[in-house]
């Protein structure tokens, strides 16, 4: 089924087209939700809410961009709204706490690097990971993030900087990232 046929079917509320659309995009969208959520259950709730919005508002899709892009934006907005209910995004997290963040999968070498990275992102505090997801992965600007999360643009910038530092630290510990030599020197305690 081509995307155009799929779209027309969904606009006419054809159940077969709706299921096809869901099957085509739900795995990717669940991964997106998972990056924002605190658990898989939460991610599935977000996905469910997102797809209900997609199916009920699909007539509003103006075909200016790709269907996938529109679906992605709808899902992201749903995730943000979901998080907004429970969390404020302008909260700060002490960077010292970052060292305590651990992953249950540190000793599962067989896991794919991609999954490890997603898990690492999910270890970040909700405000940090939301800004990081939006800026570094989804490609939103800090101004757009500010509007989306009802925070200052500068707050978005600082949240991102801290989120990035925290994530780097986690990824280094997992041997996914490695530091440059000169940086390592800065981190070596005096006396060693």
């Amino acid at each position, binding site marked *: 089924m081509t995307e155009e046929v799929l779209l027309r079917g969904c606009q006419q509320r054809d*159940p077969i087209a709706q299921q096809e659309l869901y099957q085509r995009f739900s795995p990717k969208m*669940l991964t997106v939700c998972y990056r924002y959520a605190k658990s898989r259950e939460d991610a599935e709730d977000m996905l469910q809410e997102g797809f209900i919005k997609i199916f009920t508002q699909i007539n509003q899709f103006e075909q200016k961009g790709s269907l996938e892009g529109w679906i992605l934006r709808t899902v992201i907005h749903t995730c943000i709204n979901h998080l907004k209910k429970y969390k404020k995004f302008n909260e700060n997290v002490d960077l010292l706490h970052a060292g305590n963040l651990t992953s249950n999968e540190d000793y599962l070498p067989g896991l794919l690097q991609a999954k490890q990275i997603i898990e690492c992102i999910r270890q970040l505090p909700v405000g940090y990971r939301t800004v990081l997801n939006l800026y570094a*992965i989804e490609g939103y600007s800090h101004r757009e993030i500010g509007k989306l999360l009802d925070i200052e643009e500068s707050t978005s910038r600082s949240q991102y900087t801290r989120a990035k530092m925290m994530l780097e630290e986690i*990824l280094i510990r997992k041997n*996914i990232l490695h530091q440059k030599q000169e*940086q390592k020197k800065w981190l070596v305690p005096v006396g060693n």
Partner: protein
Amino acid sequence: MRRYNIDELEELLKDKSDQYLMYPSDRVWKNIQKNIQPNQTFTIVSAFVVFLLAAGFSVLLNEQKISKYTPPSGQLAYQLTENNWKTDLPLVEITGRISNRNISNRNEIQSFRSAIPSIQSEESIFTEHPLQLPVLPKIELTKNLLVERNIRIKNKRPGFIESISNVIEKAKQIGKQAKWQIYFGPNIGYRALNGYSSTTNYLYNSYAYSTNSLFARNVKDAVIHKPAVGFMVGAALRYPISKNITIQAGLQANYHRYQIEASRGLPEIATYGMNNLGFGAYPINAVSNYVNGNNYTAGVSLSNERFMISMPIGFDYKVIGSKKLNFSIASTIQPTYILNSSAYLISTNLRNYAKAPNLNRRWNINTGLEANINFEKGNYKWTVGPQLRYQLLHSFTEKYPIKENLYDIGLRVGIMKTF
């Protein structure tokens, strides 16, 4: 696995975020389906109602066409000329035998044959096989073919099945667009009362010159009544026929009441004189324990209650606003059946109150006027606004000379799924 440099973090995130896919559990799709598919019961009921209406309308139109074009029974005459031969007219199947002796002119057979391309030979006219003839809009008796009395004419309605399927299809489409709204709300019930204690059009009992009727000729001035709180709940199927106009029909239940101030007294005979409607006027008597007016010692509030069900049919007109938030006015006409009535009627001498169930009207017509604020919140559309409902026919039969029209003013809250 490739190890990334620390300054490649953003590149790493972008690269890896799309590589990993997760598959949702079955419950997610089931829940989505539940939410996006309209309620099956409502859809079936809606489609059925719409189908019945559409089918009825279609059949009615069809019957009118048939009656217009059905030739009279018995001897039939057709003028088959090239001028009135129209192949797009509905076909009529004629079975039977055309009598040779009734055809006066052999040339007529020739013209008949030439007019109907399917008839190849003269013999075929005299067979028992059905012939396909067009139904002519006008039957003339000039140049004709006579067909024997027992000719059976049967309208094949070649498009009937198609029209039924079209009706079904249309009903499905309407059913999809139509949405149910559930509404409810409290209201204040009251009544408009009118009637005079005149001796010219109805009878009086021995208490005709009671205190009230002496000084109050109009019943409005003789009774003390006050509004009371009732309730309304209903469901309406709404179908948009244009950007601003939505038609609606549904079922509504109303609990209406108001109160009357009276006093307890010794049992008396309350007489209800009747209007003379041309069949004679015979008063109705009832035992009454209540006297009109509150005497402050044995005062009691009588509650006149009615539980009624109605079928509001009307339209809603969007006056201003967007799809998300707008202001609309609505009007309905409501055929109403009074399921239960507990009403005290004042005797025609304006002295007593008693129940006289025989004087209650069972069927009535109400009209409703609404002013609504409509707004969308999530997946629901809310409607909030005042409603005025007025009963067009009197509560009691025409024989009872005192006229009562119920009305209520309420707050109507409606909710409708937007998908």
